[in-house]
């Protein structure tokens, strides 16, 4: 899994297809769980790259919708964005694509925000 890009409150992470990550041996499709790991990590990275959040976060909840199976052999890219940040909570959406035009999966999550202690 690699961090490809990141900016203020957003991040793009990707991972290659790998036989060890397959969830359904009949089709070679990557396990939903592996896609969850990618999106949770991307969402966490988006929070950590937010200017108002210190570099630490934890997932409070995460809802994931799997829209279609990821095409075997293709790299998966997840783009996550903090669409709202309060003093204590970040609201983050993420979308995962393979080489196709339509998304593979989408997630909505909330993450803890730890503000930098003022001296």
């Amino acid at each position, binding site marked *: 899994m690699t961090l490809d890009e990141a900016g203020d409150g957003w991040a793009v992470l990707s991972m290659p297809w790998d036989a060890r990550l397959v969830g359904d041996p009949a089709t070679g499709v990557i396990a*939903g769980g*592996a896609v969850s790991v990618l999106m949770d990590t991307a969402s966490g990275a988006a929070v950590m790259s937010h200017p108002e959040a210190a570099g630490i976060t934890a997932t409070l909840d995460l809802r994931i919708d799997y829209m279609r199976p990821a095409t075997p052999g293709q790299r998966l890219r997840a783009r996550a964005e903090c669409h709202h940040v309060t003093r204590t909570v970040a609201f983050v959406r993420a979308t995962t694509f393979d080489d196709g035009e339509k998304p593979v999966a989408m997630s909505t999550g909330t993450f803890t925000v730890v503000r930098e202690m003022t001296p």
Partner: protein
Amino acid sequence: MTPEPVQVVKQRRDAALAALVAGVPYIGFLGIRFDRRGDELTAILPYQDMLIGNPMLPALHGGVTAAFLEVASIVELAWQIQWRDVEAGGAPLPELPKTIGITVDYLRSGLPRDAYARARVNRSGRRYASVHVEAWQDNRTRLFAQATGHFLMPEGG
């Protein structure tokens, strides 16, 4: 007719479960195992350093926790089909249910030690199934995560 010896029954059920679990590479990748009491399954995620998301705390990765709960749900659903088939005399490996969506609540941070999960099928229809799954570590009553997922059942399941 004399009942079958207990070892024969046990061996058959354990073999069916082992075949189901061994068929999924991702289960082996995370190192998840399943404990069986009759038809009841408990998923076990043995601790490994690679499962840590935040080395500063350290805490289990949120994505890994989600993956663990999802695996526990899918295996529970497939096992219910498998169990019915095994008890009926045949034991073809069932096609696996597909995840439509799952919502995970993180109740406490996952500690760097083994985790357990048990899934309960709340509804299993011809097409869709709804599953609730709970995960804990040291104390069964102190859950560190829970999830509700919806799954697409295999044709003819």
